[in-house]
Structures are given as structure tokens and as C-alpha cells.
């Protein structure tokens, strides 16, 4: 079995290429750091395995995900390397290519995004490039699926044998040192000359992973010379030689096609979306547009149709059918008032959630995310967070668990802890149904604006808490903020569709598991009391529990015990709040849900409840993840307590202050 390691700079289309070559769908996003760990796939109709590694700029790692790639080369020793490069940025991409060519395995160089290069009026003499680098060169465009068949053939045809590594003309001092070290390593440690040569160069280049490897294996020829290497600044000499080699190679192989103007599309879009003054309003505007689409324009009308069907014909037919087959009221109520009303009520929000997921997928694929991180960086810097911490937070809009997982890309442990703790404030998609339920009942117009305000309240609170945590944990500012702004590309419908489905599938699956389970549980608690089966819901367990805590919540405007009981079920999963609330009000009220709502809430208290739901205790899955990722129960418990207290305070302030004016 032949193994091909897929290596390249971040954002060169590696993952897209991996998907096209291996017939496997992997998560594709247009920003750095999408591949956090390595993924494997088989090339179609062959036994060749491709390993997709995180994007790296060089083999000398800074972050944890970059270390994965270097360790892979050291320990797993692939048979072949497929080096994916961004053809328009070949100069810097070749810095990594040289390191890979020195490794001495057959390398196939894919010049990806070749169309962008040609649009800039430039191309390369591929044969000459291949000759100078000593490897196969192929032009591809993974997004448009061009050049892929040839690349696949090339990979399958390349003999997986050790080939002559690339030898650069390093300065004499470096050359001599490499030769000496290589000779000793081969003689005393039985390393192959190629590997010893590569190891020596990487060691001189201050590659921490290689240096650790040398210490572990007691490679004395290198370890004893370490100070000498560093004193003569071999690293810089190696870098300069490589750069000179790249310049020479590119000058000799570049072919100009035609003159171009700088008025390309990316520049035009960037002139607007990264504008110093307009950048932030545009960021907010894009979010408003997302909520307009999902709450006003597309999502809600579709949801209304679904809701009308579920609460109308479906419910009525089921009810008639059950009566006709002689089901007893108890069973009928469980199915119609419990499962159909509760689970169906949550399912009717599918259109809104899918529209939102589609919007998030488009943002991910287009390249806007990097711009968002940039325009918000000044703000993030004031708080002491890295602009890049913004990306896990945005991912948290889908699901907080995923957001916390994405925080793994943050190198500093304390910074990572802060990001983990503030992640639950990001309004995850599970909270959308309850927003939808309330805004439909209380806000005729500006529904999108109300939801947007909740999302931004979540962000604001997250940033505020981050500032406090930074101060408490004494986090030193990590100033490495270098973010690449990739070229925009037209979002590809199939990637958007896959991304949306992948995110949305979980929601549908939950309808059959936790939402169903939670709904039956709340129905049961509402039909059972201390005296057994009760006909009046006011004597049920759920009423007892809700009423017991109700006085505490009076200051935030909650006057119904049903709301309290529903909030408690939210710990199972946030969607269950909606289904519980529907079931509870359905069982206790004769009139419609909206009519019941308007007698129990004012728009102000409804908003205060939504704020409370936004902030209070994270769901069980999120808590377990906080525990797993921080390795302590303490932080999970802290999260429940602190978030609930904060939620209470913020909701109370909104309700009390609002009451003075309204």
C-alpha cells in the first residue's frame, strides 16, 4: 500500500483537492486552520492512500496543528509527497516545497488555482520548473475539477522509490557542516544519507520538533554543534539561499501572457468590505441579511407552511385516526398533544435553521471570514483576544460544542481556556426555535432585528467576559496576529449544499432522540402528580416544580410556571425548551399558543426571557465538552453557575430598566 502525504500552505485548496481525488467529502472552508488533524482517504480505484495534513507554512511549526505535519514526516515516513501550492503565490509556497524536496521522497507539485494565475497574465514553463526542482509539476484547479485526472494518473504512475533529493548551494560553512553531520549520522546511527542530510538541515534551521527528535535519539553529531550553528545564524543563511534559489527559478520559468490592470474582483470587493469605517457596519449588515433571509424572507414563510400542516391536517388526522381505532384519551394526548405538537413544533423550524446554515456555509466558503476577523481585530485587541479567536466563536453559532472544539487551534492554553468559557454565550442554532416562537408571537415587524440583537448581545457579553477572564487569569497578550486574506471565490453550490446538510443533519437526528425524549418526559411530568395520574395540569409534578421556583424569576418578568419548567428541560438540549413550552401551554390552555402567550408576556418580558435563554446554563453536551477539553469538572460546574447568574442579572436589568420606559 502506497501512502501519499498531502502537504501545502494553508488555504491552497488542499482539502478541496483531497476531496476530489479521494471521493471523500471533507470539511472545506476558506480560511486558515480548517484541517486540525490529519485525514485519510483512498484514491478511487486504487490502493493508494492519501493523508490530508494541516496546512503549514514551513516544517518549523508554531502551532499544534502545524506540528502534526512535521511529526508525520518524521515518524510515518510517507512513500510520496503531493505538494499543493497556490500558483499565484508560488514564491512563498516554494519555501515549503524546498524542504519537502530535500526530504528525498518523490514529490508531485500541484500548481493549484492555476486560473487565478493566468487571470493575472502570468504562467510558468512547467517543464523547466520540473527540471529545476527535480519533481513532477501539474497545473490544477481543484474547484473547477480541471487537471485532476492527470494529477491522479501522475500519482499512480510515479514509482514510490527514494529519489535524489534537491541540493541547494548553501554557503560553504553550512555545506561543510551538513556534510560532516550527515557523514557521522550515517556512520554512527545507521541513518540513510538522504534522511541524515534533511535532518541536519532542519536541525540547523531551528526546527523544534527535529531538535526534540535529536535529543530523544541522542544524535550527538547535531546536539554538540547546536550552539555553533545558532551562533553563525545558519537559519538566516539557509533562508537567504532558498529565497535566492526561488527568485532565480521563478525568473527563469515565468512567462508573461498579457498586461493586467489591478481592477480585479477581489480588490473591488475588498475596497468596500474592509473599509476602515464601513467594515464593521458591513459585518453587522451581513448578519442582518442572514437573519432577514432566515426569519423574514425565506425561512419563516416556509416554517409557517410546515407548522400549518403539522398543527392542522397532520394533528387532526392523527387525532381522528386514534379516536376511530379506540385509543384512550391518555394515549391520544401523548401522541397528539405531546409528540406531534412538541416534536413537530420544533421540526417546523427546519427551514429557518437550514437557511441560516446555508448562509454560514456561504460565508465560510467565500473567503469573507478572514475579512471579518480583520475588521474586528481592533476590537478584539482592546479586549486582549486574538482576532483569530473570532473564528471558533462564529463556528459556535452552529453548535457550541463545535466552537469549543475549534478553539483547539489556539496555541496559548490560557487563551484557549478563555475562548472555551465564553463559547456558550454564542447563540447556537438550537436556540433558534425558541426565538422563532417568541418573535412570531410578540414582534410583528423587525423579527430579524430582534434575533440579530440577541446574537450581538451574546457576542458583546462574550467579549466582556473575555476581558474579565484575561484580567483574572493574567493572560499576557499574544500578539501573533497575521491573517491571510484569500482571494474570494464564487461559492460552489455543491460545497454549500454539503456544508448545510452536514450542519443540519444533526438537528433532524436530534428530533428523534433528545427532543423526542424530552417531549415525552415533560408530557409525563405534566400528567402525573403526587396522587398519580392527574387531569388538571396544575396538580402535576411539572407545575409543582415550576411554581416552587417561580418567585425567584418574578424580577425578570416571568409570571408562568410553565416557562420555568420548560427552561429546566433546556439542560437536555436547548431545542427541548421550545418543545416543552409548546406541550405545557398546549395542555394547559384551550386557546391557541399565541393567544396564551400574549396573556402571559408583554413584549418586554418576552425579550427578557429570550435574553435569559440566550445566556443561562449551557446544555449537557456543551458542559461535558468543557469538562473534557479543560480536563476538570470544576470549569463545567463553574459554567453552569456563572452563566445562570449572569443570565439572571442581565435579564433583570433589561426587564427592570425597560419597565421604567414602557
Amino acid at each position, binding site marked *: 500500500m502506497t501512502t501519499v502525504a498531502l502537504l501545502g500552505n494553508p488555504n491552497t485548496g488542499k482539502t478541496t483537492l483531497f476531496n476530489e481525488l479521494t471521493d*471523500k*467529502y*471533507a*470539511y472545506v472552508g476558506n480560511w486558515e486552520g480548517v484541517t*486540525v*488533524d490529519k*485525514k*485519510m*482517504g483512498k484514491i478511487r480505484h486504487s490502493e493508494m492512500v492519501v493523508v490530508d495534513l494541516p496546512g503549514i507554512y514551513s516544517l518549523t511549526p508554531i502551532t499544534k496543528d502545524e506540528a502534526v505535519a512535521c511529526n508525520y514526516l518524521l515518524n510515518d515516513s510517507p512513500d510520496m509527497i503531493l505538494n499543493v501550492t497556490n500558483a499565484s503565490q508560488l514564491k512563498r509556497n516554494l519555501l515549503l516545497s524546498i524542504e519537502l524536496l530535500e526530504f528525498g521522497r518523490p514529490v508531485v507539485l500541484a500548481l493549484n488555482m492555476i486560473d487565478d494565475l493566468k487571470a493575472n497574465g502570468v504562467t510558468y514553463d512547467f517543464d523547466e520548473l520540473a527540471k529545476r526542482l527535480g519533481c513532477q509539476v501539474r497545473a490544477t484547479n481543484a474547484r473547477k475539477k480541471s487537471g485532476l485526472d492527470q494529477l491522479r494518473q501522475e500519482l499512480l504512475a510515479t514509482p514510490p522509490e527514494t529519489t535524489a533529493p534537491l541540493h541547494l548551494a548553501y554557503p560553504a560553512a553550512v555545506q561543510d557542516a551538513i556534510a560532516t553531520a550527515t557523514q557521522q549520522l550515517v556512520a554512527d546511527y545507521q541513518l540513510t544519507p538522504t534522511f541524515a542530510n534533511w535532518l541536519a538541515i532542519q536541525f540547523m534551521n531551528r526546527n523544534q520538533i527535529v531538535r526534540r527528535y535529536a535529543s530523544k535519539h541522542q544524535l550527538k553529531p547535531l546536539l554538540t554543534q547546536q550552539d555553533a550553528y545558532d551562533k553563525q545564524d545558519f537559519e538566516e543563511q539557509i533562508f537567504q539561499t532558498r529565497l535566492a534559489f526561488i527568485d532565480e527559478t521563478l525568473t527563469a520559468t515565468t512567462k508573461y501572457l498579457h498586461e493586467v490592470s489591478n481592477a480585479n474582483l477581489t480588490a473591488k470587493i475588498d475596497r468596500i468590505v474592509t473599509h476602515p469605517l464601513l467594515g464593521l457596519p458591513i459585518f453587522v449588515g451581513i448578519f442582518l441579511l442572514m437573519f432577514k433571509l432566515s426569519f423574514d424572507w425565506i425561512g419563516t414563510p416556509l416554517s409557517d407552511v410546515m407548522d400549518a400542516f403539522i398543527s392542522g391536517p397532520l394533528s387532526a388526522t392523527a387525532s381522528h385516526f386514534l379516536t376511530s*381505532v*379506540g*385509543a*384512550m384519551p*391518555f*394515549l391520544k394526548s*401523548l*401522541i397528539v398533544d405531546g*409528540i406531534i405538537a412538541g416534536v413537530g413544533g420544533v421540526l417546523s423550524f427546519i427551514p429557518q435553521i437550514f437557511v441560516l446554515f446555508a448562509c454560514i456555509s456561504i460565508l465560510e466558503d467565500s473567503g469573507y471570514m478572514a475579512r471579518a476577523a480583520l475588521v474586528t481585530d481592533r476590537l478584539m485587541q482592546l479586549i486582549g483576544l486574538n482576532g483569530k479567536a473570532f473564528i471558533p466563536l462564529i463556528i459556535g453559532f*452552529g*453548535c457550541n*460544542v*463545535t466552537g469549543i*472544539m475549534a478553539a483547539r487551534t489556539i496555541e496559548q492554553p490560557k487563551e484557549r481556556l478563555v475562548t472555551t468559557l465564553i463559547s456558550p454565550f454564542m447563540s447556537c442554532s438550537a436556540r433558534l426555535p425558541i426565538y422563532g416562537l417568541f418573535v412570531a408571537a410578540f414582534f410583528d415587524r423587525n423579527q430579524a432585528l430582534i434575533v440579530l440583537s440577541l446574537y450581538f448581545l451574546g457576542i458583546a457579553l462574550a467579549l466582556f467576559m473575555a476581558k474579565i477572564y484575561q484580567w483574572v487569569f493574567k493572560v499576557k497578550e499574544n500578539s501573533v496576529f497575521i491573517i491571510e486574506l484569500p482571494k474570494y471565490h464564487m461559492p460552489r453550490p455543491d460545497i454549500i449544499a454539503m456544508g448545510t446538510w*452536514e*450542519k443540519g*443533519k*444533526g*438537528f433532524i*437526528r*436530534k428530533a*428523534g*432522540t*433528545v427532543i*423526542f*425524549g*424530552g*417531549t*415525552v*418526559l415533560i408530557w*409525563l411530568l405534566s400528567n402525573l402528580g403526587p396522587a398519580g395520574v392527574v387531569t388538571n395540569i396544575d396538580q402535576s409534578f411539572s407545575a409543582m416544580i415550576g411554581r416552587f421556583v417561580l418567585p425567584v424569576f418574578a424580577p425578570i418578568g416571568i409570571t408562568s410556571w410553565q416557562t420555568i419548567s420548560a427552561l429546566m428541560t433546556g439542560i*437536555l*438540549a436547548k431545542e427541548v425548551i421550545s418543545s416543552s413550552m409548546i406541550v405545557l401551554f398546549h395542555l394547559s390552555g384551550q386557546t391557541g399558543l399565541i393567544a396564551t402567550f400574549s396573556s402571559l408576556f408583554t413584549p418586554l418580558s418576552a425579550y427578557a426571557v429570550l435574553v435569559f435563554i440566550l445566556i443561562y446554563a449551557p446544555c*449537557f*453536551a*456543551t458542559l*461535558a*465538552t*468543557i*469538562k*473534557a*477539553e479543560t480536563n476538570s469538572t470544576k470549569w463545567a460546574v463553574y459554567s453552569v453557575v456563572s452563566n445562570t447568574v449572569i443570565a439572571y442579572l442581565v435579564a433583570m436589568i433589561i426587564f427592570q430598566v425597560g419597565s421604567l420606559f414602557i
Partner: protein
Amino acid sequence: MSILINSVIVIAIIGGAGFVLYRHLKKSSQGSCPACEYDCPAKQQLKKHQAEKHMS
């Protein structure tokens, strides 16, 4: 429909609900990847890998 059949169905539904709830909580109590609802490719690969390991 007799009281018996009615009761059996009610108990089946409640039992089923209890079971899925228990399974959901057990799965999510592991935190991180198992708790995550997204069926991302890394996870699919992991599952496949474990299945293959189990087979052999």
C-alpha cells in the same frame, strides 16, 4: 382497542423515550467529539477506522 393494548403502546413510547434520552446523555457525557452533533468527515473516518479495527 382494549386497555391492555393502550397501556402497552403508552409504555412502549415512554420506554423508547427513556432509552433514547439515556443514550443521548450517555453519549454526550463523553464530551468533545461524541457530544458534537456534526457528522464531520474526521468523525466518519474515525468511526470507519474503529469499525475496521473491530473487524480484524
